[in-house]
């Protein structure tokens, strides 16, 4: 009877969630229909089923479904999460490509092709991006800002500005949404002294692996991990002496100092390399190659450094290595952006195209190094490990390193969108090729990682890393460029303005002539430009964050209290002999538990 009071969608979901055989669910559904019909409650079952149709339609559009299923079947869910992440990034870039092409590039090509000086096309341009590509629509300089006067009039400046702004806003919203959903689903507050290690290992048995050898491999791994966790439990009982603890702490400190020193050193090296005029003239490819080499070698040095440290649990080791790699990559990107935004605009004409070309070169060289990495790091390493030095063994697929490489490349691509609207073409091609190459290399060369622990939480961490510092950094850089930097005078859609943001001012001024559009100007002047608006937003966001964390802790306490009540009820029910009646009778109890868990996952 309580099913009747729910809405149609909630009722369907509740019936599906009943842990009964099919025929019993069917009976319950029929009786609820009869009651509803008798009470003349209107419901919209068809509408809900149509939403299901959308879900099935989406399934048709999913590319790579068979490949992904094969990968999951052989290597498990954690390796699959890398490929799903890659596919997700591909969707971002495809969307950017489509809107940039439709709204910015096509009008430019159709109405005002801006090729003033055509130099010959030599193959090297694919690597360096200069020369022939200079004046094409690949880079910022290829667009001009005149309003296209043919009917209908098309304001190129506004189009450029709004397309990029809309894309970045949509990206941000989508990232925040994914992050909050992933956080809600996967992040578990560790309360209580026991870690639940044994249960966690047993319950994370991957049912989606179907390959027999992989299952055998997983079984062996699980046995080893269970034995390790047993011996860890025994060791935990021996407390560490004070001198041991000081020794461990000083080793940790030393390792951190070395890592930060390496990161700072790389940043400084790149800065001097970039500002040295002779080296710059010698080869434009020198800087990208050095950056990619640093990205390749320094993480290896980091893993070497981490061998001197001893960690209490393997998860801490993974997180700390991720943090160090992120610090390295973000400091490199930070130095490069600092150089591009502070020194380049004053010294180079058409500086936006120059920045676009630098980003293009960085992406291409990064791609080449990725290909080399697959060949040397996985193929040759496999050959060496199986034929020459047997003790090395088959290489493991390092998920963290691969995902961080993806995040780094995506940050570069996002930085480059403002300066080179067609850059997503390259990123899309690159991601396509990397997907297939990684899949082939995986099947031929690698084995799944041994420690699969907490794959879901690491997923959340990766999405959070994509949002901050990656996306937020890009957003602040683009905002700084648009707000305060003077666009170059000779090229680009914003030539002649003080800052690109002045297009908005010009547009709102021109709108004032049309009284019907006054509301736009009103919104702009009074809301978006007022400090009160931002103050209100910050107030709301702080209040939300203030109230979420205490409420989660409070829910934990509530859960413990209700669980106590549950066990008392269970004790009374335990006299029941057979299983089935217990299920029906304890539906009250399972309803209570369902409420508990549903409320904690809201």
């Amino acid at each position, binding site marked *: 009877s309580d099913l009747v009071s729910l809405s149609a969608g909630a009722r369907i979901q509740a019936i599906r969630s009943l842990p009964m055989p099919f025929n019993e669910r069917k009976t319950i559904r029929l009786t609820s229909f009869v009651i509803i019909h008798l009470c003349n409650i209107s419901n919209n079952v068809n509408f809900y089923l149509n939403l299901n149709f959308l879900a099935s339609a989406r399934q048709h559009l999913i590319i790579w479904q068979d490949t992904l299923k094969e990968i999951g079947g052989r290597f498990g*869910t954690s390796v699959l999460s890398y490929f799903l992440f890659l596919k997700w990034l591909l969707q971002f870039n495809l969307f950017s490509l489509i809107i940039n092409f439709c709204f910015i590039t096509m009008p430019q090509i159709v109405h005002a092709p801006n090729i003033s000086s055509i130099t010959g096309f030599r193959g090297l341009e694919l690597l360096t991006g200069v020369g022939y590509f200079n004046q094409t629509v690949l880079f910022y300089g290829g667009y001009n800002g005149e309003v296209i006067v043919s009917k209908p009039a098309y304001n190129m400046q506004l189009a450029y500005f709004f397309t990029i702004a809309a894309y970045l806003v949509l990206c941000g919203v989508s990232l925040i949404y994914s992050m909050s959903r992933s956080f809600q689903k996967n992040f578990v507050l560790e309360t209580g002294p026991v870690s639940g290690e044994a249960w966690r290992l047993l319950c994370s048995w*991957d049912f989606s692996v179907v390959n027999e050898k992989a299952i055998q491999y997983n079984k062996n791994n699980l046995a080893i991990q269970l034995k390790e966790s047993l011996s860890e439990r025994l060791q935990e009982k021996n407390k560490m002496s004070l001198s041991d603890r000081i020794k461990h702490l000083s080793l940790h400190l030393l390792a951190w100092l070395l890592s930060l020193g390496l990161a700072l050193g790389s940043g400084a090296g790149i800065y001097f390399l970039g500002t040295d005029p002779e080296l710059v003239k010698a080869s434009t490819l020198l800087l990208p190659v050095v950056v990619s080499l640093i990205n390749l070698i320094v993480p290896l040095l980091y893993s070497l450094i981490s061998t001197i440290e001893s960690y209490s649990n393997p998860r801490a080791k993974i997180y700390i290595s991720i943090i160090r790699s992120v610090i390295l990559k973000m400091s490199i990107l930070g130095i490069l952006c600092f150089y591009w935004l502070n020194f380049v605009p004053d010294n180079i004409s058409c500086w936006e195209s120059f920045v676009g070309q630098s980003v293009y070169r960085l992406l291409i060289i990064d791609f080449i190094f990725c290909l080399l990495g697959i060949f040397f790091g996985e193929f040759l390493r496999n050959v060496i490990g199986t034929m020459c030095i047997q003790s090395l063994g088959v290489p493991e697929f390092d998920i963290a390193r691969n995902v961080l490489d993806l995040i780094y490349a995506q940050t570069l691509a996002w930085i480059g969108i403002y300066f080179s609207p067609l850059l997503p073409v390259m990123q899309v091609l690159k991601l396509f090729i990397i997907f297939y190459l990684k899949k082939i290399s995986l099947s031929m060369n690698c084995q799944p990682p041994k420690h699969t622990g907490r794959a879901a939480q690491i997923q959340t961490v990766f999405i959070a890393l994509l949002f901050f510092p990656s996306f937020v950094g890009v957003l602040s850089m683009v905002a700084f460029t648009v707000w305060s930097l003077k666009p170059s005078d000779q090229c680009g859609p914003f030539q002649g303005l003080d800052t690109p943001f002045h297009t908005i001012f010009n547009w709102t001024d021109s709108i004032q002539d049309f009284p019907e559009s006054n509301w736009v100007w009103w919104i702009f002047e009074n809301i978006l430009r007022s400090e009160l608006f931002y103050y209100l937003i910050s107030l709301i966001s702080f209040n939300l964050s203030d109230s979420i964390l205490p409420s989660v802790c409070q829910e934990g306490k509530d859960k413990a209290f209700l669980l106590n009540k549950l066990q008392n009820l269970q004790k009374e029910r335990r006299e029941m002999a057979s299983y089935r009646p217990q299920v029906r009778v304890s539906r009250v109890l399972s309803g209570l538990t369902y409420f508990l868990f549903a409320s*904690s996952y809201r």
Partner: protein
Amino acid sequence: MGGTSSKLPKDLLSEYQELTFLTKQEILMAHKIFSELQDRENGPYSSRVSMEKIHTLPELKSNPFRKRICHVFSTSDMKDGSLSFEDFLDLLSAFSDSATLEIKSHYAFRIFDFDDDGTLDARDLEKLVNSLTGETDDTRLTGEEMRQLISNILEESDIDKDGTVNLSEFQHVISRSPDFVSSFKIVL
């Protein structure tokens, strides 16, 4: 249903969509695979497929729990683990992407309950660990390790201290491992 090329009637299809977590594609695929299994069944036609035939599916062939899965989802009176089409859909629905944590943990509990008595006692846990670890001597847990492991497990999850893990305690433990939902999955 029956016959090699019979199509699923539309009203049945929408009923299955409403009562399970599967999408239309998944139901049609399940129907196709189930019909193929029925055709290969020797002997007189019946609407149930025997456990041995279900075990020939590539998704279940090497699964360490295939016998328990068939027994849990079977509604056969003869308790032989044979599945009708609705049982098969129940199986796929519980293992699907969109199934709730409550359904998955409920069925996981029943699958791990090897003696079907409604609780996970030390014998069930021992059988569970043995199914999930290797069969070779060097990977199998020794008797001492097994006892230690089971006492650790009971210490972590047995709240009412009765020596067994019941459904609510199991679901409480499951709620603390977020990997469970993504790994308790079988896709055709």
